[in-house]
């Protein structure tokens, strides 16, 4: 049966398209060919790139050059002729970084982005439209260290006195409150939900809501940003942006009753805490208590995300 148009589809062996370094990425390319034609050897290319963008309006010095993490070209069909209809070709290749370097985990951030793609490009001469297809796949990089047994909890207490952004003289003007709680782990496992609890022990003012905010802290080497300066010096330009903000409680909660903190870490928008010479990706959790009059109290907790085997 002769199809209307020609097209290429790339299908990966895994439905979730997640692979780890050292594993074999496999799948199949199916080319739907109208009328069929002869072709040279066909290849699929896997690329992985870390892209950095300059924060702020200052775009002086142009874009930061992206860093190649992975480039692998695999031939899936020798030169030959494509039959009319659907032609399927399996492919596979081992997943490893360029030059034996470590691969980074897939991550879609604000200023930092790590992406992996598979692409097929098929030139058919000047008169014919080029067939191409690109699919994204996901790389997860578990840590090489042994598994993280010890949870490091983080208890906290917030009172007007502990606020850092209020002048000590004005503290008395702030309505009285005592908020306690803990994060169960400050060294979080990225594949498990983030948990903790928070208790409004005392509050003069009624509470409007309690929010849990996941913040990404992306830092880029200053030299790369400004375009000059010493790239060796560990100076970074840091930007904080919100990944997700979930409401943990709505309305005036009962005093002294612990309210759970619970957040499923969003896939792809988070990655294990990472630090390289060029950039860093780190995370923070904010607990925000909003009072009825609109006044907010925010407490920030640096957290580290880890992926175990």
């Amino acid at each position, binding site marked *: 049966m002769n199809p209307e148009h020609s097209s290429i589809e790339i299908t990966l062996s895994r439905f*979730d398209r997640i692979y780890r370094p050292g594993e074999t990425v496999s799948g199949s390319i199916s080319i739907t060919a109208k009328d069929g034609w002869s072709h040279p050897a066909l290849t699929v290319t896997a690329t992985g790139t870390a892209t950095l963008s300059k924060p702020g309006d200052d775009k002086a010095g142009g874009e930061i050059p992206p860093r190649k993490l992975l480039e692998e070209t695999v031939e899936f069909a020798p030169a030959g002729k494509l039959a009319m209809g659907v032609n399927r070709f399996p492919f596979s290749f081992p997943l490893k970084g360029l030059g034996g370097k470590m691969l980074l985990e897939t991550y879609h951030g604000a200023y930092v982005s790590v992406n992996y793609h598979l692409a097929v490009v098929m030139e058919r001469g000047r008169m014919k439209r080029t067939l191409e297809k690109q699919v994204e796949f996901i790389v997860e990089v578990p840590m090489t260290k042994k598994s993280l047994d010890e949870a490091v909890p983080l208890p906290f207490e917030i009172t007007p006195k502990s606020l850092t952004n209020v002048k000590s003289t004005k503290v008395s003007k702030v309505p009285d409150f005592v908020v306690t709680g803990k994060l169960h782990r400050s060294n979080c496992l990225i594949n498990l939900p983030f948990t903790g609890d928070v208790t409004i022990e005392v509050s003069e003012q009624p509470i*409007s809501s309690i929010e849990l*905010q996941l913040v990404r802290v992306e830092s880029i080497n200053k030299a790369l940003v400004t375009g000059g300066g010493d790239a060796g010096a560990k100076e970074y330009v840091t930007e904080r942006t919100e990944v997700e*903000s979930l409401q*943990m409680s*709505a309305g*005036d909660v009962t005093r002294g009753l612990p309210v759970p903190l619970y957040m499923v870490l969003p896939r792809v928008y988070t990655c294990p805490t990472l630090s390289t010479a060029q950039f860093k990706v780190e995370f923070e959790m904010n607990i925000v208590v909003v009072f009825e009059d609109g006044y907010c109290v925010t407490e920030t907790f640096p957290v580290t995300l880890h992926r175990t085997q």
Partner: protein
Amino acid sequence: MSMGSSAPPPAPEPDPGPAENPIKARWAAHKAAILKSYQVTSVKVSAAFMAEEDDIEVTKSVKSVDRTRDRLRQLEGDSASEKQMRMTQTEYTDELKRLHKEIARAWTSGERVLSIKLMIKCTKLLADTRSAPQFYPTVFVMVTEMLDTFGSLVYERIKNKAEVNPENPDGKRKRLPRDFEPSDINVDACETCRNWFYKIASVREVLPRLYLEMCLLPCYKFLSKGEYPKVLARMAATLRGLGDPLVSAYAGVYLTKMGGVMAPEAKEYADACVQDYLTRFSDYGDGPSLNTSKAKRIYENVEHHEYLHLHSPAVDWLMSQASPSTFKSVIKGYRDNCGNSMVLGWIVDKFSARNYSENAAAMVTLARQAKASRTGLLGVFGKLARGFQAFPPPQEQRMLVLNEVWKYVTKCEDITSYIACATEWLEVVLLHYSPLELSVLMRDIVKHLQRAEGASSTSGGQGEELARALDPLVQLLVRHSYDYNGAILKGGELLQILDKFKNSHKADHSKELLETFNKNSEETDDPVLINTLFEVSRALHDSLDSLTPEGEQRHVASLINGFIEKVNFGKDFERQLNTYVECRSAFSNLDDVKERLILCTNRLCMRTLAMVKGRHSKKTQAFVKGCLAFNHITVPSIESVLTRLNLLVYCGWVGLRNTCLPQTDTFLKAAISLVPEAGASGAAVGEVVRWVGNFCGLLVMVPGSPEFGPFYLMHALIKAVGKWASTDEESSNAAVVAMNAAARNHAKAKCLMTMVGTCSAWGQKKLPYGCAGVDSNDTLYGGGKDYMEELGELIKGILGEVVVEIEACAEGAMKDELMLGFCETLLGYFDRDDVCLKVVKNMVKKVEKGGTGGGKWKAWLAQVRGALEKEVQSRAQ
């Protein structure tokens, strides 16, 4: 207000497990009760609710942290300045139903994103407890039904993926077994399921996020085993984050319902929900007097007791989901933080009384100390009583408990609550106490009823409400009416209570009472008991009128008859007769009862006879005469002629047996004079013939009169039958008239032939049977010449008439029957002399030659004729 048939079709339910059925039935009943009770006239709805649905962020956007606070402020500000519009309850529920349908429709047309957006929008309605709090429970029911639909849609979608072979999507599907395991699920379905959980985990607001996860609980089954206790525990803890007590209470209801369906063995989370509810009660439970901002906010819209009433269905459900073993900790939680009668009522109701019956007195004290609500003290007492019915207080506490409780119950002003509570305690007393307490309670109840009647005019609605409340009380009394030898029936209170009902209602209860009595009681001579039932029957009888259907009248009559049969004064026959006399005047409208009374009186006569061993004294004779007189007066008041005829024969027989000849005479004469009316009253021809047969049988024994001759009754009967047969029928249909006339004449002939039998018996030296103590014709006339001559004339006369009838009869089967009957009569009752044989032979010939030629008996007839001819011949020789 009902949901109406325009509700969207129920989505297919997932199959979670074997224990789902009881909880599903309970949930359905619970929902129905809520929908009935929680209504409102108008609802304030935010304009945003009616606007297009585009307020959900499904995609992520980048925001600076510092702007977060401003954004939050902005959101709060938006909700405050939202425009509101008023809708009626119907408009509102119609809109919800429309949204329900829309969610399903969007899903099935592949617009799953729209579907989830709508679902989230609807769950947000459950965050609003301000615009129409009275309506909240109903809104909860409607929104959770949408959630059930939505959950099923997601579940089915994943299940479909699990049943499709990913390598061969169009090929054969593999059905998932009912108890499938996560390992049965293919990767595609797993991923889809996981994606759904990721999606709802990223919903920003806690209320929709929580409700969505609840409705998707069944989907955890696809991913892992044994996760439910952990998941449910986490979700139960999350309820604490819902600051509004009404919101969190109902969220707990939905959680425990879904958890109860999916994981009925996991109970700890439900217990945690209950404990949290009790702990938080102190935030608001005591009403506006609390003076906290939370309390202020709640009570500026709703009155205190009304607000507790809104919580009531949630508490009801939660308590029913708690583990039975947690009673002690629940009571502790109640004591420490709650103390309100609405909650205590549900604790008492939902936990088995086995838990607290040993401490009955303490529970009563707890109830007394409970704070006010619509349930109130009496409500709690009532529920305690229900528990005590099955698990009574220990013996040494019983009187204390009853006294303590009644001290408060009797002070109650509101008659409906009083009756409801009193009914429950009455049952406890009936089951576990003694007649003494019973009578005290009954008297108190009557006192309250009288006071209530005196106080108000019990007009229309209130009267009806009271009657409804009294129903269970009366049914209880009826059920136990024969306890303690009918103590309830003997106390006068029952009648007084029955009086409070209106007619048809009262009649129903009276009927039940009589039925129970008839079924359970033995014969009785207790005057109080009899009097009570008599009054009940009389009232029931009086409630019947000409419009009452016949079946109903029959039923009532049979009930009253049942009662009458139970009255037995033993040897005191006079008293028995007096009772029958009273009954006759009381139940004069029911012929069935009068008939029964006559039969009972007859029986009384026979028992008297048995007692004197067949020899009446002057006294007993007079008594029997009295009975017969009673019957004599009663019979004419019965409408049915045939019944009267039968009764008169029976009474005649009784009279004869008791050697009351004048009375017998009267009865028989009365019967004979009634015969001509038999036709007009609709008695069937066959029945009349049968009756004549009975009568003639009796007549054999009846002695003749010195005044009128030995056969005067027979003469009268012959005349009467003749009159009956020649009744002029008024009918326009000539054919029918002719047919009926023919039938009657035919019947007349038969009657006459029967009478011949009696006459021939009279001709015997000794009658075939007689009556002890009565001289019949054989003794009286001894076969004397005059006697036999008169008898012969009589017989001839009768036979002559028969022949006339036969000849007048049209040719056909009827005629043949008559002729053959005639032959039988001759052969049976007369000497078979030549004349006789000749006549018979000729008759047989006639039949043979006649129209039907004897029909199928032809051969036999020929045989008979042959035999006859032979006999005649042999005699001639």
